[in-house]
């Protein structure tokens, strides 16, 4: 469809922000999020950490606050129900429906089948945990379950994302900022190999209960279930031992053999994301503080608003990346797979 000037009308991507708690939800909504995503206080979602997530009262309050501001609430019920345990996930679906949320973010096909049958009025988003990296997968899930949006794993270059969008009627949501998974989301068992718990089976990665810190003459060691993930010399800043972000030895070289700790930051390709028709930009960080959520939401709101007006002439305000780096993992950022040579 072309406008009078012959230009394609641009879709403005929604800003989808993480809410690990009611204060974080309010911070996101109050600073310009179009949508917030959150989970229940159990293993039905992939950020199943102690002290995080919403109980009934917080969710009711959150939905009220968001809707009053014209923002939408998306509930992640995106882990894989394990054998015999499906009832809890189905109850979570029914519960979310009763609370009047705007969409569910789901990964498990069995649970999607249930939701289509029991709550057909509920909008379905395919979680990044569903691990759909191509339009054949997305279109298939659309035919099967009527998904209206798919969150893309962070494995595609911008050109590949463009290809997906061009070949599907399903809205595409991509990550714009936050901690990066180097493995394709939804099919990584590294954490359960080391600790018994993974995003798929329990909704966690490199869980706190498996973490050990030890002071040794060689430096501070971080371990997961006894496995040495990294060792820090004096003056080196120790990082949380996410399994894939340790330093390991390969053929005699010790380095970040799998991934460097760095946050994804797609600000510099925002005009590209607009151009290719991304429907929504997702900020990662449900386990981060309300202050983080406020900071990141504010900057991305400003950036999206600026890009809406300036288009290709969009320029990043210097302060934005500085502020984002302060809250970024590793205090640095990367374009990740969006930039092909990273792969």
């Amino acid at each position, binding site marked *: 469809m072309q406008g009078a000037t012959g230009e394609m009308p641009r879709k403005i991507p929604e800003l989808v922000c993480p809410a690990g708690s009611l204060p974080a939800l309010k911070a996101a909504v109050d600073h310009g999020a179009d949508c917030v995503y959150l989970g229940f206080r159990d293993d039905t979602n992939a950020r199943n950490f102690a002290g995080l997530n919403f109980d009934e009262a917080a969710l009711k309050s959150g939905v009220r606050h968001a809707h009053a501001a014209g923002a939408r609430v998306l509930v992640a019920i995106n882990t894989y129900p394990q*054998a015999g345990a499906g009832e809890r996930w189905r109850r979570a679906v029914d519960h979310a429906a009763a609370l009047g949320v705007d969409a569910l973010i789901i990964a498990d096909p069995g649970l999607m089948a249930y939701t289509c049958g029991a709550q057909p009025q509920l909008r379905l988003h395919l979680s990044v945990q569903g691990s759909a990296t191509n339009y054949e997968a997305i279109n298939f899930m659309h035919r099967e379950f009527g998904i209206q949006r798919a969150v893309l794993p962070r494995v595609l270059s911008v050109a590949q994302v463009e290809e997906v969008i061009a070949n599907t009627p399903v809205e595409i949501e991509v990550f714009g900022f936050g901690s990066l998974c180097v493995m394709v989301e939804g099919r990584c068992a590294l954490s359960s190999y*080391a600790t018994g718990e993974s995003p798929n089976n329990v909704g966690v990665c490199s869980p706190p209960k498996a973490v050990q810190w030890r002071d040794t003459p060689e430096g501070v060691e971080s371990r997961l279930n006894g496995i040495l993930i990294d060792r820090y010399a004096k003056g080196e800043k120790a990082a949380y031992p996410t399994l894939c972000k340790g330093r390991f030895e390969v053929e005699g070289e010790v380095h970040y053999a799998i991934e460097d700790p760095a946050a994804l930051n797609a600000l510099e390709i925002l005009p590209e994301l607009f151009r290719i028709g991304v429907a929504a930009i997702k900020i990662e960080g449900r386990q981060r503080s309300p202050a983080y959520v406020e900071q990141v939401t504010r900057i991305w709101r400003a950036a999206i608003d600026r890009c809406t007006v300036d288009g290709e002439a969009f320029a990043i305000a210097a302060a934005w990346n500085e502020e984002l780096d302060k809250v970024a993992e590793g205090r640095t950022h990367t374009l990740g797979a969006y930039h092909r040579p*990273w792969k």
Partner: protein
Amino acid sequence: MNASAEPSRFPPNRPRLSLGPLLYYWPREKVEDFYQRACGSEFDVVYLGEVVCSRRHELRLADWIAIGRMLREAGKEVVLSTQALLESESDLKTLRRIADNGEFAVEANDLGAVGLVAGKGPFVAGPHLNIYNRESLEWINGLGAMRWVMPVEISRDALAILQRGRPPGFETEVFACGRLPLAFSARCFTARHRNLPKDDCRFSCIDYPEGLELRTREAKSFLVLNGIQTQSAQVYNLVGALPEFASLGIDLVRISPHSETAFDIAGLFTRVLGGDLAPAEARRKMDAIMAGGSCDGYWHGRPGIESAGNVR
């Protein structure tokens, strides 16, 4: 070629042996020799094709099909496996050609692959699909899956629950020996180790026929890098559990090859399944021919890296 029937001293529901797809990048001749040997092996089912990386080109689809025909002549059931991580249009084109091959059943390892084979005849739901519960099993069976390769994370107890609700005629295959496939990435770790981008990887993984070992900073073997795939360094080994497989209703036992030891292991597994060899003795023989350690944590509902230790 062995045309004689096996002696029928095995119980009727004795699990069959399957040879999982070759996950490493080998030169063409080595691959062809390997599958020649598979013709005369104890494997009942052989999975062929490239699951890991589309840049690997020693064998093209036509070559895999030719190998498939040779194996079929030798009495093997052949399945074409598909790539687990599909990113590009070119990946999808290859997938479509495999889905339409018309000769061999397909193992789908991605939802897009499922979409292409659904409703068009029997297919295998591969281990890289996230099928963890009865509802998902029913769903995939309803689409035409005749067989399900259980995700490696699933424990024996969880499997027992799932087997109770199993649709009739639907087979269960268990990954029972081999380095565990743990993750896939857009990034190629083998190329990265050589400071090369994936697009100019110079096919580095061909230099590591059993993958590239990754150790912790205290020199403990931990993972193996195989191009874009990360595997366990420890070999998953369920030989101790084999005597229970028939009663659990397991139809196929998968051995994932990293060398020709796969054939020796097939021989040992056959004897254990037939009741001719004690699992503990088989385990000792396996330890002698396999480098590195083994693990079986997932089967016991533990971290995958753990080993339950003694085998009865």
